[in-house]
């Protein structure tokens, strides 16, 4: 691979990797910023949404950690450090393996209001995540294959891939869609519909494009998936902080007024 780099005239031949790394950095920063705005939004610890809020913050922090490691990985590939690239691949697998845990807690708690069920489901997905890592870490890998746009590493463990696809991603995505459908079918207020729908759609998109990113064979597909992850983080931010114009257009603005004397 070092030879390939020298053939391309050093790292200047991998300009796409810089874009890839920049997208990863942007996802990290925006996910962290969003988690911070969520952290500062609700100071009431007795509020019923406190457990789901904490789970949502945890979800975005885990996304940020995963993409921070991925940023280091892509940067390492750019500067020609394949060992660091492989190390970061394994390190990033840890937050990605446990990403569904806070998400499942969030969905189950919002849907049922039962913390015990939410913890039980989270524990189940922690077991799935651990199983995924146990199959992934000792398995043989192919790569890193560094191209103009991306660095790809493929695990040869079919079990790890099966757990990753079926348990860790498809089940939580189905849960999100079910929750979204059940909420929208009962027609809450427009403002609630907007916030709930946009939050859940954004989470679902982030989740699905992380999956596409992980299983992408084509390097351009990896970059495209990361761009969509970034867009989804922005969507999630817009769910909580809709611009004035959008609020007026969708008629979801909060109208408050002072008391008037008749």
């Amino acid at each position, binding site marked *: 691979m070092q030879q390939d780099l020298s053939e391309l005239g050093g790292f200047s031949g991998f300009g796409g990797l810089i874009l890839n790394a920049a997208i990863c950095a942007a996802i990290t920063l925006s996910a962290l910023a969003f988690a911070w705005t969520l952290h500062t*939004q609700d100071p009431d610890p007795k509020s019923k949404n406190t457990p789901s809020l904490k789970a949502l913050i945890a979800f975005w922090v885990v996304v940020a950690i995963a993409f921070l490691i991925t940023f280091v990985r892509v940067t390492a590939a750019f500067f020609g450090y394949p060992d660091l690239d492989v190390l970061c691949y394994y390190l990033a697998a840890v937050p990605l393996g446990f990403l569904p845990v806070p998400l499942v807690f969030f969905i189950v708690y919002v849907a049922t209001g039962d913390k015990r069920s939410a913890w039980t489901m989270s524990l189940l997905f922690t077991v799935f995540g651990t199983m995924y890592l146990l199959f992934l870490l000792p398995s043989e890998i192919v790569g890193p294959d560094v191209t103009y746009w991306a660095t790809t590493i493929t695990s040869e463990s079919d079990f790890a891939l099966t757990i990753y696809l079926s348990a860790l991603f498809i089940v939580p995505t189905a849960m999100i869609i079910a929750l979204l459908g*059940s*909420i929208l079918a*009962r027609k809450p207020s427009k403002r*609630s519909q907007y916030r709930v729908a946009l939050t859940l759609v954004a989470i679902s998109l982030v989740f699905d494009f992380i999956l596409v990113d992980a299983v992408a064979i084509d390097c351009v597909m990896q970059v495209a998936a990361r761009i969509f992850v970034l867009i989804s983080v922005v969507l999630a931010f817009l769910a909580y902080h809709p611009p004035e114009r959008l609020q007026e257009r969708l008629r979801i603005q909060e109208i408050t007024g002072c008391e008037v004397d008749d």
Partner: protein
Amino acid sequence: MSRIDVLWEQEVAAYFQSLGINQGPGDIQYRLIVLVLASNEGGVTQFSDIRTYTDRIADRGSVASKLKTVFLLDGLAERVQRGGYVVTDKGLAAARFIQESGKFYKRSTKIAAIIERMP
């Protein structure tokens, strides 16, 4: 006669009262009387059957007055003997509406709770 959960019906009536609906679905006496009459469809409902459920929440006089001024006057029930009433088709329609209002309450509170838990 199928069991009628008085506490549940009280909860539903209180919900409708909180929406400013004090008659019909928001009136616990109306709810209980119409449900008791409907559960006795095809038979005669004795005033004592109704009082089995209403005694906990209202006095005998106000229930009798409600039967006379609402149910008999509007044709939801017919008096067939002393202290004996038969539900009419209109009464059954009213009972179905009251049952639906219970489902509406369940759906509304469920969605309100979900929205409340959303951060």
